[in-house]
């Protein structure tokens, strides 16, 4: 037997990239979608929102420019990596979360970063972060428009144990910025290959062939609908359980049912895609190798690529990415001039000039990762505007200064054109100690999710557009 060009999935995925692959990846060719199932594309690209968290704060005077010029301000040392993109982002200043003031240095500040909530002490049995994060609120309201409501990415495994000095904070708090509700974190994917696969999982749909009606009995009974029928069945099972339990068991079953529904929705979205944005050009990205890359820089880059791919294919419009967990002990000795020491350790530099310089280099490296993302998104055309033009990307930390845990005037960059609603390239200087929730409410409003009050917001931050 001759073996002409066997298309092994592995080869295809490695060689050609995700735009051209076997059935389970086929939906990635967005034009195929439209053509096959007669779904209509959107008339203009939708707005996407991303939230990028960097741990351990910055060196304040090397972040915030001097003076008060709105434009043409000095590019400070830590902002150097995004200097050539200065017309693509604004610095948003003087925002904070009042509920984090005077509390533990790190743990409560992480869940609060996107929610503004008051994080209760505890041992984890009764997690209460006081709020739902803004990305999850957006996903709750507009996430159904895409096959994935939202995408959560990171690089660190969640922490365990309790930091139980004086009542205690579970360390798990420092591992999540995305919270489905005040009690439930949304886990982040940290393995690139799995994150990549997640974009395309459960997308195995009946092939589109002329002469076959997608609503026919034959399709409903097909192997492709097996996942859906399995989910239907366990849903029935869980519902019968639901009626028999109460209290925290009931919460567990509710959570289970909600997840089953979410997966069913994804499957339905594949069978009957709704209106989505279809980019004409293709974006090639090889499927990442398994495991976590040895190089941290490579790891972060892959996760950012996946975020871009998810936005570009309109698989989701909402993403969060933790470039590191609170108090990350990761060593950044791959950066020139940084010793093999814990990032968190170095952040408490005690004003030792040498240590402080290392701390700053690590922070600046994180800004360089933002630069990579912005460049990549700027280079992707969506029919006259770039993916970056159609995005709002919040990058920053939950501390101004890692050494003193200062929670005032958080270091925040808002990048992208916000689909015409943002005017980047400026310093947006709010009044001192303005709730950061005002900014989050402003971003949420742009996504079509209006809130009368979000966290401790006192209004919607103006001056962004």
């Amino acid at each position: 037997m001759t073996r002409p060009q066997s298309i092994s999935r592995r080869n295809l995925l490695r060689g050609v990239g995700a735009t051209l692959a076997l059935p389970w990846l086929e939906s990635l060719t967005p034009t195929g979608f439209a053509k096959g199932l007669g779904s209509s594309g959107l008339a203009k690209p939708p707005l996407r929102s991303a939230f990028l968290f960097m741990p351990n704060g910055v060196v304040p005077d090397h972040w915030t420019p001097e003076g008060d010029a709105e434009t043409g301000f000095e590019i400070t040392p830590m902002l150097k990596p995004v200097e050539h993109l200065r017309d693509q982002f604004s610095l948003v200043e003087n925002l904070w979360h009042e509920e984090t003031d005077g509390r533990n240095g790190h743990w409560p500040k992480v869940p609060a970063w996107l929610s503004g909530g008051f994080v209760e002490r505890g041992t984890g049995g009764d997690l209460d972060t006081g709020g739902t994060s803004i990305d999850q609120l957006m996903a709750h309201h507009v996430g159904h428009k895409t096959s994935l409501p939202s995408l959560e990415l990171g690089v660190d495994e969640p922490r365990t144990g309790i930091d139980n000095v004086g009542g205690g904070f579970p360390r798990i708090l420092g591992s999540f910025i995305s919270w489905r509700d005040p009690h439930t974190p949304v886990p982040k994917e940290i393995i690139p290959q799995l994150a990549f696969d997640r974009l395309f999982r459960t997308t195995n749909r009946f092939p589109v062939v002329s002469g076959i009606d997608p609503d026919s009995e034959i399709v409903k009974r097909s192997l492709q609908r097996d996942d859906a029928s399995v989910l239907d069945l366990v849903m029935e099972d869980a519902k019968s359980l639901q009626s028999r339990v109460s209290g925290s068991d009931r919460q567990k079953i509710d959570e289970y049912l909600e997840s089953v529904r979410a997966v069913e929705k994804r499957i339905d979205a594949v069978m009957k895609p709704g209106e989505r944005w279809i980019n004409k050009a293709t974006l090639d990205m090889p499927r990442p190798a398994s495991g976590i890359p040895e190089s941290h820089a490579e790891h972060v880059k892959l996760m950012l690529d996946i975020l871009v791919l998810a936005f570009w294919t309109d698989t989701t419009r909402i993403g969060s990415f933790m470039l590191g967990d609170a108090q990350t002990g990761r060593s950044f000795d791959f950066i020139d001039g940084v010793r093999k020491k814990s990032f968190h350790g170095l952040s408490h530099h005690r004003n030792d000039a040498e240590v402080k310089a290392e701390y700053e280099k690590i922070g600046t490296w994180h800004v360089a990762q933002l630069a990579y993302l912005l460049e990549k998104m700027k280079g992707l055309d969506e029919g006259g505007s770039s993916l970056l033009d159609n995005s709002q990307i919040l990058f920053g930390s939950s501390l101004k200064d890692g050494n003193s845990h200062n929670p005032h005037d958080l270091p925040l960059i808002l990048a992208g054109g916000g689909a015409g609603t943002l005017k980047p390239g400026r310093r947006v200087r709010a009044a001192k100690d303005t709730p950061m929730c005002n900014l989050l409410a402003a971003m949420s409003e742009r996504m079509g999710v209006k809130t009368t009050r979000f966290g401790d917001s006192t209004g919607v931050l103006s001056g962004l557009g």
Partner: protein
Amino acid sequence: MASVGALAAENPAQTFEHVILPVLDEVCFDCHEPGLSKGDVPFFEAEQVADIQGMRSVWRSVASQLRNRTMPPADKKQPTDEDRIKVVEWIEGHLQDSACELGPFAGYVTARRMNRLEYDRTIHDLMGVDLQFSETLPAEGGTGEGFDNSGESLFLPPMLMERYLEAARQIVDAAIVSPPRKQTIVGSDLMPPAKGEPRKYRPIRAGEKVAAMMSVFVEDDYRIGVRAIVGKGKKSVLQLSVDGVPATRIEFSASGDGKPVEKKLELRLARGVHAIELKLAKDSDGLSIGEVRLAQNFDLEKVSEEQRTNHQRLVGAVVGEQPEDPRKLARDCLTAFLRRAFRRPVGDGEVERFLQLFDRSIGRGDPYEEAMKLTFRGVLISPDFLYRMEREPESEEIQPITDHELASRLSYFLHATMPDEELSRLADEGRLNDAAVLKEQVKRLLDSEESRVFVRHFIGQWLGTKDLGGRVAPITNAVQDFYTPEVASDMREEVVYFFDHLIRDNRSVLEMVDSDDSFLTRRLGKFYQLPESALEKLRDNEFRRVGLREQGRGGVLGMGAVLTMTSHYKQTSPVLRGAWVFDRLIGSPVPPPPPDVPELPTKGRDGKKKLTDREKLDLHRTAASCQACHQLIDPIGFGLQNFDAFGRWRDKDNDQPIDAKGVMPSGESFDGPIEMKSVLAETRRDELVRNLTRKLLGYALGRSLEDRDDCTIAQLVGTLEESDYKARTLIEGIVLSTPFRNRQAIPPEPIEP
């Protein structure tokens, strides 16, 4: 606890009001006035002694902060030493005396999703396959007592549901052997049908496209054959696509005798219906397709004996054979399977429900094996399998859990997997909740090799040593010659084998600190630079017990894992080591350094002499804001200074002899690790034992402990003291305890939206 002094004999209400509160009012109230700040520790909310009962952990923290002198802050008013000790001893004594005041407490264990270790091990026992999902499922963060088996933090987000769905498919495909798939589509069945009368050979024109709908059950390599007739002297090229994705080109040329020609190729196909599309190239001559065939590249002969046995156990039929009455066999197999998967007897209704999936599959003509696979997939993602559900308690009264629930609790506690046959049988017979039977079973489970998994999981998380070699101490060029991944792995396992031995041989739990022994491989022995005579008795891939008193080792404080984990890179840290002992072993962590710590001097007062680490720390301890904690933790670290940053012995550092002397805040002095460990085990014995008890109880129950669990802890500690601290007494005591065998409803607490 021996702190029940003269005070306790008096009326506790009086003492609290007239002796204890006045001291605290004097030194704590200014900062801790109730309502002053939102996140404060609310111990002053206790106005009468009875109020302490509702906030025992807060008051325990008050006692430990006072004892450890971490409160009040050094720059605030301090109590006299006499007052300090009086208050601490009264609080501790009162907590001890009042532990069982409210009676026994069982608490409520939330439905626990299996964590990834339990999932892997359960899948192995249930399905007979080992697919290592723990590598790719998202890691669970631990809450409660800090373990990843705590139901409260075992969430099930959509992302995980997707994974379980996919894992279930992989599992059934690995466990159950489907007959090799073969399918033939004749020309007249190609889509779209040809116009006019259907003909066996379907003619197609240049540019025309036809598709054969092929379904495959298992992702695998498939041979595709295309049979066609080409006119004499003609050549044709077919473009083959799979579900719209171009795959390859097939060239046909006439055979000369007008007979059909068959061309073959191989494709990798996922489960599902696929459209094998054939498009005749534009400039080709027309041809007629006779059939498209598909055959799985898989040979039943290659199925191993082990796989066959496992297959038969699960689906009741020999590999490759179709049963005579499929639905009856399916029903029987499913009933047995559900009993094991749900870890309890199941009702007919449940069996029928899952048989719907069997019917769906059989109904469309799938083979028996595939129908069973689909049914099992439903079971493997059902809540009754993924969660350990316990029957809802009927009241707030303590009531025993069922024997089957008890079997699960016991099995997941000591073996991290589903109950085995013996436990299931005892539960079926209703005999498990008998103290004598339970004791016997604890012994049996602990004697089994499988209990090492429990030790590894519990100790690795409690002491934090499971992370060694991971993010704690990355392996880099500078040290890779000696600190290899194998050494790191041996270090992690040293801790496991040591505790495993304490339990297996029922030794005193105090040996965790005060022991002369450990367990080493030859590789680790070399790393620790043991003399040749000692190395001779060791083997590279086997842990053996070694007496190490001469080396200053024995117990966890002489173990490379602990010593490395609590060091900076290439540099020891007495501070980290001391803090670790308080955090992990003693269970009263010291506060983190305050923000904005002033810069440490690097030179002496004369501005010339370069200070040693010890001198720097000595200076540090003179600063008021640092003093209290460092006086507490540094001495322990000094006692361990003979161990370098990787736990190797050293007599000198930078050509200076090591000074391993220290004085505990309570006054005991020591020189070197052996003396330090004895002092520690002596002076902190109650706290060490109490903390271990607490951690193990939290792990066993899989929930956060509450104030009312103090009663169980006090009883367990009491029994442990009476039995010379024997490890098995503790484990047995936990299994026999009220909260392990019972459950009670908790009054619902409204949760704000």
